[in-house]
């Protein structure tokens, strides 16, 4: 599935305090490609991803989901995409397997079948044996894997991920990144991955879309032509280093601008 974003603008707030989160953001996210949105805090990247997922209404502009094989057929937002949230949003009162199977349950799938499918996914993310645990009893990395399994079970062609690994410690993060790469290689979804970590964006993505500080626009799109399957060793290659440099310089002035914005906000109160 292609995701075509056309001139999406997002304005928060009432009359006096208007905040332009996104300013005419336009991009075509190609099918079966892993696109990373890289930008400083507050640049609207989370908002964009939620708009694409049909969970926020854009102030203006359009998002179209297109099946490249069927030409220009419009599909409703949300049906073909699934989100992995920054704060996970696992249902704390449901155990692991009921969390993972939630989407199927909403669809009316019978319990046996949805538990069977959930078990397969739990196996693939390495959580066998934890089906009856509550999210509160799991570590951060384990909860992350539950969130991932809950999204993957839906078998939707578009995967939207909003800084999913931001809260993990460095080692768990590495493991999860490798896992995600493996899943991507196997399933070929269209992935839109939001991050503020340059290294992560280059390691995972086929393209890195560098965004400006608020109001969020595209500063530059960096194609990443590293071969797949990716591996962590690539981080030490010259090619990776060059890409990192490029992204770093682009983003550095945006981060400074974002920090200034935040200082303004604090001072203004």
């Amino acid at each position: 599935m292609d995701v075509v974003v056309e001139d999406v603008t997002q304005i928060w707030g009432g009359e006096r305090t208007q905040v332009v989160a996104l300013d005419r953001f336009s991009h075509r996210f190609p099918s079966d490609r892993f696109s990373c949105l890289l930008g400083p805090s507050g640049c609207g990247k989370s908002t964009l991803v939620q708009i694409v997922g049909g969970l926020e209404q854009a102030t203006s502009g359009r998002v179209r989901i297109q099946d490249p094989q069927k030409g220009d057929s419009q599909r409703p937002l949300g049906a073909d995409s699934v989100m992995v949230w920054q704060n996970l949003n696992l249902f704390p009162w449901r155990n692991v397997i009921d969390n993972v199977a939630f989407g199927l349950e909403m669809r009316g799938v019978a319990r046996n079948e949805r538990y069977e499918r959930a078990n397969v996914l739990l196996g693939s993310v390495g959580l066998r044996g934890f089906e009856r645990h509550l999210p509160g009893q799991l570590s951060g990395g384990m909860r992350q894997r539950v969130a991932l399994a809950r999204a993957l079970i839906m078998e939707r062609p578009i995967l939207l991920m909003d800084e999913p690994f931001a809260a993990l410690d460095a080692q768990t993060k590495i493991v999860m990144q490798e896992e995600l790469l493996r899943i991507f290689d196997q399933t070929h979804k269209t992935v839109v991955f939001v991050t503020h970590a340059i290294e992560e964006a280059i390691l995972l993505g086929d393209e890195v879309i560098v965004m400006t500080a608020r109001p969020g626009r595209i500063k530059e799109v960096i194609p990443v032509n590293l071969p797949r399957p990716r591996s962590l060793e690539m981080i030490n290659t010259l090619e990776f280093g060059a890409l990192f440099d490029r992204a770093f310089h682009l983003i550095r002035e945006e981060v400074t601008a974002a920090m200034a914005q935040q200082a303004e906000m604090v001072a203004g109160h």
Partner: protein
Amino acid sequence: MNGKQGTAKFAEAALPTLSVVIFLMAWEVFVRWRGIAPIFLPAPSSISFYLWRMIADGTMEYHLGVTLLRIFAGFFIAAATGIALGLLMGMSRIVARVADVWIAALYPLPKISLIPLLIIWLGTGEAYRIVISAITAFFPIVISTYSGIRQADQGLMKAAKDLGANTRQIQLKVVIPAAMPSILSGLQLGMGVTIILIVAAEMIGGSSQSGMGYLLINSGQVMETEKVFASLVVLAVMGAVIIKLQQWGDRKIAPWVAHDDR
């Protein structure tokens, strides 16, 4: 090393009980030594004697039973109506708007002040007792139910929508479980005030001649202070047992909420 740890743990566990025992012993000694009249401050030994007698001849059982029945009747009515209205307010803005005004106006009123009015309307029978306690318990229950629904995590609702849940499913499967901790804490508050109001209603307006409140005030009037103390002890134990049971129930219903260890 092990011996020391064992002793320390034992001491820590035994300390509260020990402090109570020492307190009671000091009380006993003090009353006897100073020759204090039992009307003012009876000795623990004589309180125990009276307590035992009241249990043995069925008095305590009867009054306690009556009080408990009233408590649960009042609490059940308050819980059913409070939760129902709270849910309704959560699902309909109009209902919320209208109800909110009434709740805001009536909640600050000390419900005990309604006793004279209710006695005029309902007499001093069971109806008045149960109504006054239900009215009082109703407010914290409806308020915390509504608040629990209002404050349901938006992120969870978005996640549910993203996973294909429709509005009805979100309400049933996300909002209500999310509101559960708040509802349960409202029920705790509601139970607390129910107990207070029932005992108070039993003390005021004496056509009942039954219940722990009656026992208290009657024993007081005839200056049988030992019985007053005995009744207080039973009330305290009753209250503690009810609270513990409710906490146990809360953990069963909402196991995901972190509780302090008691």
